[in-house]
């Protein structure tokens, strides 16, 4: 029997500073460790603890993975101290990913803001790999200010794709910004898809997810077609420790991706 509590050893190959509080870590696991977009990993610094993160790299790259992490507490403080050559632990993949095959033949909308861009990047790679199987592909993203955008070079590349309708906004602009200003829901009105059948994926801070969900409902997207990437306190990651319960579900095993109709009736989903 395998031990679901033990981590696989991995080496930090590269650390990229994205913003003053966000870094991306390129990791090389000692054993093969693959994941699907939307699944998460428990990332540990030996002795300092473990925390759940969704990888931010292309899931088709098999020998390494990238994880993008905001510094918010004890474990992430220790993670931010990591240097190339350091040893870390990875446990996973955990949870269910995005059911991309269910999106085949449909229009796909991706709404992702702030640090939610990290998992969105993995998802976008997944969608690009299957691009010819979807109808229209739309991405709407936002950040508090232009400095907070992660993966700028990639965002610029995506902007140039003619098979993607993409727009970015910021809550507060600056001299470098000549795009729209406002929360992400303000750049959703010109989306031109078949809302009745479209699949929408929302990933970002809870407040953004909440209002993006309401906006999608208003536009006519069905609750059962709104895929939310939920953030709950996940400790074990395999449905035993009880921390991440949402009604009859555990976020770690039944999610972290849920359709809105599954969870809309339960309290505290946006917190």
């Amino acid at each position: 029997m395998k031990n679901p509590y033990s981590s696989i050893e991995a080496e930090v190959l590269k650390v990229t500073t994205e913003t003053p509080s966000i870094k991306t870590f390129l990791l090389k696991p000692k054993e093969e460790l693959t994941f699907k977009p939307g699944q998460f990993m428990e990332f540990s610094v030996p002795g300092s603890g473990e925390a759940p993160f969704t990888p931010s790299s292309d899931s088709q790259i098999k020998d390494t993975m990238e994880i993008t992490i905001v510094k918010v507490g004890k474990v992430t403080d220790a993670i931010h101290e990591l240097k190339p050559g350091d040893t870390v632990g990875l446990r996973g993949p955990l949870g269910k990913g995005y059911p991309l095959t269910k999106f085949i033949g449909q229009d796909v909308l991706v709404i992702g803001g702030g640090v939610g861009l990290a998992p969105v990047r993995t998802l976008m790679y997944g969608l690009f790999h299957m691009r010819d199987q979807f109808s229209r592909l739309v991405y709407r993203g936002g950040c508090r200010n232009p400095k907070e955008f992660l993966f700028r070079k990639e965002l610029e590349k995506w902007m140039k794709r003619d098979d993607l309708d993409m727009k970015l906004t910021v809550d507060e602009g600056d001299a470098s910004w000549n795009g729209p200003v406002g929360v992400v829901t303000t750049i959703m009105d010109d989306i031109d898809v078949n809302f009745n059948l479209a699949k929408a994926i929302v990933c970002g801070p809870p407040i953004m997810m909440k209002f993006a969900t309401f906006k999608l409902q208003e536009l006519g997207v069905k609750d059962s077609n709104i895929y939310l990437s939920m953030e709950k306190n996940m400790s074990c990651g395999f449905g035993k420790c009880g921390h991440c319960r949402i009604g009859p579900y555990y976020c770690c095993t039944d999610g972290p991706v849920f359709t809105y109709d599954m969870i809309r009736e339960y309290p505290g989903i946006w917190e």
Partner: protein
Amino acid sequence: MLFIKRGKFDQLLKSLTGDYKVYVPRSMGDITGYSLLGESDTNYEIGEIRSFDPLKSFYFLGREKVAEDFKPNIIRDDKPPCIVGAKACDLKGFRVLDFVFIDDECGDPTYMKARENGLIISADCTGSGETCFCTAVDINPWPESDFDVNLSPVDDGFIVTTGSDKGSDLIESNKSLFTPSTEAQIEVIQQNRNTVKSSVIKSAKECRIPVSDRLRRVIKKQYESNIWKDASEDCVECGACNTICPTCHCFLLYDQKSDGRLARFRIWDSCMIHDFARVAGGDNPRDRLWMRLRNRFDKKFNYFPEVLKEIGCTGCGRCIAACPGKIDIREVLARLEVR
């Protein structure tokens, strides 16, 4: 059915200490508590009611090392537990924990091993405690399933029934210790069962606990009620109700470096404590104490009935006895039923 004298049963337990860590209930004033059976140790008492400590502690340890360095091996490697005198409510507790922890794909390896290799010698209740309400959650005060061997106390020994192949094998290989039971003995245990059951039913009725098939409905109906605020007023967030509960299974993983090695511990956690559901960003879906109390009831009386088709409360009343704020689960349930 077979009968075994107490002296012979002592012998049987002694013979089990080779293969098992045998835990026996011992009298501690008005209550019983479990500890390990020693050599030539016959100083135990099959208590009238459940022990004060929950039996989960021998399977799902309060603090246990579950992983070391990056090795995939399973750490705990000692004799499996044999629990003597487990009551019907305790066995129900195992049913809930089994549902949570046993899973071929991704179960808790040490719990599964202890359950698979362990031995349960249960016993009928011979009295009803002040906080007992098992009948209100559909349990009879005598074991009916989920045991290997059951003891029904009679004058100078026990009437023995088997509940599993492991139990039958144990009796078979110790045949000489048993004699056939008499009709009079069977009558005694039947009478005891009836008396204890009536007594628990009476006390549960006095507490006005909603009938079991309404429990889930009242929790859902009163979800937004002020009762939760009111009931949580005396809670001091000590988590005693969680640690003492035979079905509470929540834990947290904690990493430590000791002697240059990485060790991961699984430690009991409490859903009543403020940061239980708090996420790294700082948001907390159950920021208020009453929300956490409501969540505890929701887990036992709504979540488990939905996913397991069983109430997640055993009616053992340990949480009532343990609560320093004197919060009584029976009273809270009674208040939820609008009359």
